[in-house]
């Protein structure tokens, strides 16, 4: 018979000591447990539990909270055009954003496996996640400025667009002698036809001197050459006044880079050239003419004016693009972590069996990655449903209705203007119902992973 006598008497404490192993008494509330739990419980009770119930209840009352209105707020929410537009935008986000980010993430993660500076690239991609969405919003607001002079996005597009279409310099220019030149479309055409040996004079006014390229020289009146059609395009204006209309005189600049065409009697372009720095041009015509001299419209078209990223039609795609920039790093790093766990031998075995890289990717890598891909995807979906900061920061005030999303509409309805807490609560409940199943699925997956 043995009795187990503790070497030391159990410590004397105010309440029962709970025994961690073996037969335990039924748990009872004691001061220790209450003491340990109370701070968190009070906070959570006041700030989470009570508000959830209160918001649900509040959604059935009117703006001031005095009158019970039943489901009227919900009815208003779903018939209000602003809210519907916001919901529509969230749907657009949902269709584009998670797929795009996950796709880029997979692509970057897989490609990065092959380079040794993986860490550097991952860090660069991931850094936007560390900073506030407000700062990211400011960054992209700067990038999206409309003028190609100041907005980086448009500057890039402009250099491509202008390289393709060769816009003209002389927007707004018009003939100094209108009876000699008629409008032809958006360009101009000499009223009289020409033949080899002729000299063409085309004077222009009505445009700012800043449009003349820096390399322009004083216009030179060319002399006639047999067998060629020559001419000059010049600014028929002397700064400060003076001179005669229609005369090529000192002080009047030639207009370089003006595209000049010879159009034959059938209407097709027989030849085309550009004026030089003195505004002179010449054609060696292949037949005797007669020709019309045409200055095509492109000379007078303005250069690329800039895509209006922050205008009503493009603002949502613009913000989505900014959001993709922010979140691709997250997807890349997370998927990269997952890729590292895929056994190299498995991939090697597949390659040895004759699979191409693409097949290895599709048949081995993607299926093994798919649980992680789903977690990433769901995380992105949750972020889309609650997206707020980026939209409020990037969209200028006038475009907010076009860029609106549910979380922003909630803020606007409840906390700006008159402040309708009834409708605001209804929107909050709606958001809650959207988010809950998604988050619950995420947690379950998360816990399954371990």
């Amino acid at each position, binding site marked *: 018979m043995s009795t187990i006598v503790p070497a030391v008497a159990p410590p004397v404490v105010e309440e029962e*000591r709970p025994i961690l192993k073996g037969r335990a008494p039924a748990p009872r509330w004691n001061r220790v447990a209450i003491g340990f739990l109370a701070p968190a419980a009070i906070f959570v009770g006041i700030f989470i539990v009570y508000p959830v119930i209160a918001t649900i209840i509040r959604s059935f009352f009117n703006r001031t909270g005095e009158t019970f209105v039943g489901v009227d707020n919900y009815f208003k929410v779903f018939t209000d055009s602003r809210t519907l537009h916001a919901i529509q935008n969230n749907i657009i986000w949902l269709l584009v954003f998670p797929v795009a980010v996950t796709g880029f993430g997979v692509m970057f993660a897989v490609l990065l496996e092959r380079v040794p500076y993986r860490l550097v690239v991952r860090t660069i991609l*991931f850094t936007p996640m560390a900073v*506030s969405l407000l700062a990211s919003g400011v*960054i992209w607001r700067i990038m999206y400025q409309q003028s190609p002079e100041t907005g980086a996005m448009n500057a890039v597009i402009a250099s491509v667009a202008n390289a393709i279409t060769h816009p003209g310099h002389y927007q707004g220019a018009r003939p100094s002698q209108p009876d000699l030149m008629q409008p032809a479309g958006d360009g101009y055409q000499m009223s009289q036809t020409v033949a080899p040996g002729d000299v063409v004079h085309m004077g222009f006014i009505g445009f700012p001197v800043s449009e003349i390229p820096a390399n322009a020289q004083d216009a030179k009146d060319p002399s006639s050459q047999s067998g060629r059609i020559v001419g000059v395009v010049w600014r028929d204006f002397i700064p400060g006044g003076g001179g005669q209309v229609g005369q090529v005189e000192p002080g009047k600049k030639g207009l370089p880079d003006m595209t000049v065409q010879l159009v034959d009697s059938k209407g097709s372009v027989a030849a085309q050239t550009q004026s030089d720095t003195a505004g002179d041009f010449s054609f060696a015509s292949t037949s005797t003419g007669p020709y019309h001299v045409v200055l095509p419209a492109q000379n007078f078209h303005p250069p690329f004016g800039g895509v209006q990223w922050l205008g009503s039609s493009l603002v949502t795609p613009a913000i989505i693009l900014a959001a993709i920039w922010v979140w691709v790093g997250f997807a890349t790093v997370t998927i990269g972590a997952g890729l590292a766990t895929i056994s190299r031998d498995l991939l090697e075995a597949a390659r040895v069996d004759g699979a191409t890289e693409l097949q290895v990717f599709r048949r081995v890598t993607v299926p093994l990655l798919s649980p992680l891909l789903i977690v990433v995807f769901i995380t992105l979906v949750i*972020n889309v449903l609650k997206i707020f900061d980026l939209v409020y920061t990037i969209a200028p005030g006038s475009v907010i209705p076009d860029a609106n999303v549910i979380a922003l509409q909630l803020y606007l309805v409840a906390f700006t203007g008159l402040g309708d807490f009834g409708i605001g609560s209804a929107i909050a409940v709606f958001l809650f119902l959207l988010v809950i199943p998604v988050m619950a699925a995420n947690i379950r997956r*998360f816990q399954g992973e371990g």
Partner: protein
Amino acid sequence: MATGALQIAGARRPGWRKALDSVPLHVFFIVAGVLWALPAIGLLLTSLRPVDLFTVSGWWTALSHPGQLSIDNYRHLFDSSLIASSFVNSILIAVPATVIPVLCATLAAYAFTWLRFPGRTALLLVLIALMVVPLQMALIPVAGIYGLVSPPGIVRVFLFHAAFALPYATFLFRNFFIGIPHELLESARMDGANDARIFRRIILPLAYPAIASFAVFQFLWVWNDLLVGLVFAGGTPPVTVAILQQMRNFGSSVDVISAASFLSLIPPLILFFAFQRYFVQGLLAGSVKG
């Protein structure tokens, strides 16, 4: 799941020599890297240029005309008292919003791990359920409570953040505590320690990695927050809200906006580079957070 880290240990990696075979890949990554960093560089350069240049030329012109650059915007930032104080506000908000949940959640997690009380399992499930509540659900009623009690704006913000961090933090710490061997507590109990002592002397020091991980993430989350600050901070806004207020006059205030934005990046970036390891874990878990 692999410990989310930007640096993954494990399988063999291609060496430099073999990697040089795939030049297009390197070009691709150079381009991608530049493209990704470019917007942030744009912010930095914008903040170093005078405001009247903003509507005239792009920030990239500073690369060929470095004479444009100056730190004037940063100097003037601290003339404007609202922006300067907003940085202080952000700290005054973020620190309590991190410390309070650490204290409350470690205590609660201790209880969930080692104290027995009725409904412990049920309450744990409630906790997990509460993790998914979006903070939009609480804004309106809490605004009502604050209207009655009228605490200062800064207090309103950090109390809200602290509360919403609690379910996740408690869950996190509890998971960590479960891994601590019983024997440590047993021997401490036998030495006569009560729960309070065990908590202070043994558990808290052991919990340092979990606490650090949570604290980094929470500090960042709060520092970067916009919505809660917008709703509750009133006249003492944090940096994010103060910058947002300037956005009304974007073109004319871009000097203040860009300089303040860039400065606001610095604490998160420091934390990020110092604690990279915790980041991905935090983010995946953060998707759970309200």
